[in-house]
């Protein structure tokens, strides 16, 4: 579902229409026109070229947990718009618009459930919500999810997707880098695994903190992953960037991640990994 459809569906007094837009999806990889239903049933992976489309928390949770059964953690309550930030628009209005468009509170959602009978806590960052950007709400959601994993003595898995820090929260967004790092150290102290799945795109302060600190680092095919944005790099070095630069496969080649895993294989790989790393139950 694209954001226009989401907004439309979120507004009760506009009738849902069946148009070319709601029936067909144009693949961003191969430009092929695919039945939207077929595309979504394929976990938003293009059946023709395997391009992995961006998906949100609901789709992730549905694809990951046993029997589509899971408990969504309550979104954290944080101070909104701490700096009373205004650029061409007020930040508070941008947040409201994002909430209306996505139906979510902020850019990260977490849930507790099981993968092949193994308990896990999973967080998903939603690029559709202000570019997945990391502010106080995302940092707090991350910490809450870590605490939930520690209470349940189970692994924590995160699907990252973000342009970076949320500029409208200024230094408070930057401070989510050390904050989330402290949370990861709490997982280490509790002897629990922290597994990162990098999805398209993961850049900036998110990559330079919790997205690169996993015990195991997985990436989806073709995902853009990096510290600096491509435009910034081009402007700095005044060179064209090499083909495939900052893509998942490029990171694998350079030793930055453990594996690139197709979305259809993710549940199996995560299940196996959790089996290896989750605390073993002592024989009675």
């Amino acid at each position, binding site marked *: 579902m694209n954001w226009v459809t989401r907004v439309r569906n979120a507004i009760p007094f506009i009738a849902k229409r069946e148009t070319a837009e709601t029936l067909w999806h144009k693949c961003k990889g191969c430009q092929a026109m695919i039945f939207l239903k077929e595309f979504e049933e394929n976990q938003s992976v293009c059946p023709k070229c395997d391009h992995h489309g961006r998906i949100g928390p609901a789709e992730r949770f549905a694809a990951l947990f046993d029997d589509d059964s899971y408990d969504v953690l309550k979104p954290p309550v*944080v101070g909104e718009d*701490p*700096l009373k*930030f*205004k*650029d*061409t628009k007020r930040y508070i209005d941008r947040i409201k618009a994002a909430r209306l468009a996505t139906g979510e509170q902020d850019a990260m959602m977490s849930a507790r459930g099981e993968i092949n009978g193994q308990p896990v806590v999973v967080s998903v960052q939603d690029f559709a919500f202000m570019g997945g950007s990391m502010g*106080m709400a995302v*940092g*707090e959601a991350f*910490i809450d999810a870590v605490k939930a994993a520690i209470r349940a003595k189970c692994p924590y898995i995160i699907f990252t997707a973000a342009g970076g*820090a949320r*500029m*409208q*929260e*200024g*230094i*408070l*967004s*930057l*401070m*989510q*880098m*050390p*904050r989330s*790092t*402290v*949370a*990861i*150290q709490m997982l280490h102290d509790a002897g629990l695994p922290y597994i990162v799945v990098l999805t398209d795109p993961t850049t*900036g*302060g998110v*990559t*330079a*903190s*919790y*997205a*690169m*600190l996993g015990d195991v680092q997985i990436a989806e095919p073709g995902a853009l992953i*990096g*510290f*600096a*944005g491509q435009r*910034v*790099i081009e402007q*700095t*070095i005044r*060179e064209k*960037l*090499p083909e495939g*630069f*900052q893509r998942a496969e490029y990171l694998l080649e*350079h*030793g*930055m991640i453990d594996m690139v895993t197709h979305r259809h294989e993710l549940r199996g790989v995560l299940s196996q990994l959790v089996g290896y790393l989750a605390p073993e139950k002592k024989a009675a």
Partner: protein
Amino acid sequence: MMVYLEFEKPVAALEARIIELQDAARESDVDVSAEIGKLRAKADKQLKDTYANLTAWQKTQVARHPERPHFKHFIASIFEDFMPLAGDRAFGDDQAIIGGLARLNGRRVMVIGHEKGDDTQSRLRHNFGMGKPEGYRKAIRLMELADRFGIPVVSLVDTSGAFPGIQAEERGQAEAIARSTEKCLALGVPMIACIVGEGGSGGAVALAAADRVLMFEYAVYSVISPEGCASILWRTGDKAADAAQAMKMTADDLKALRIIDRIVKEPMGGAHRDHALAAASLAKAIDEEIAALSAFSSKELLQQRRAKFLAMGA
């Protein structure tokens, strides 16, 4: 010849007049000392008034002043017996982030910081203070060394940000920054971070997740440069002054938000006007903070540091 910033023009005019008079006096017998004294007082007042009302964007320019004291100046003036230590043991030695063992008032410290350089040649050599992965990995190595031998860590942060380049990305710039931040938060020894000039984004925080974060009066610390913020949110770099104001990046703002712990006073008219005085006040602040922290055990330090960051912006 001193470099004046745009908003210092009235001061520049007065100080130019003083120099003119001094030159004239040398060539004649006319006594102009009274006149010079009056002008000096006027210039001082002008400077004081200007600096009492700097905007966030003006402070950004002071923080980036070409004559502002850097790592090298502080090493030379406040630390004794500096012994530089090089390399990340994996790839190379970054000149944008340097460090080594030193003494501060006789006390052992590991000092690590960004160096921007102060002329074309040295700026190129130090990559304008923009660290690469090997720089952050060297910092990690030096922090580990300090931790093992019970030596407090002092960082001097002064960077527009970590280097955005192809090779830096290839070698894991993001991971290096993340690990450096993680190392700060794992130390069992006191760590004092000092934002001495620009604290630019992740490249700064990687050396600033410390027990005490000190900041010079006219230093700035932010998630992105005002220019970068303006070009993304306002879609024009011309709005940098607005972005600087909106982001709350000055020492006063950050103290109020409880992100930093202490503001270190600068000499009248900024640190660039008197390196020695700036260094002395920094040395005093660092020394006091280390002394206060040495009362705590490794475990206490670690717990307090983590609790402090967990509570931030919550």
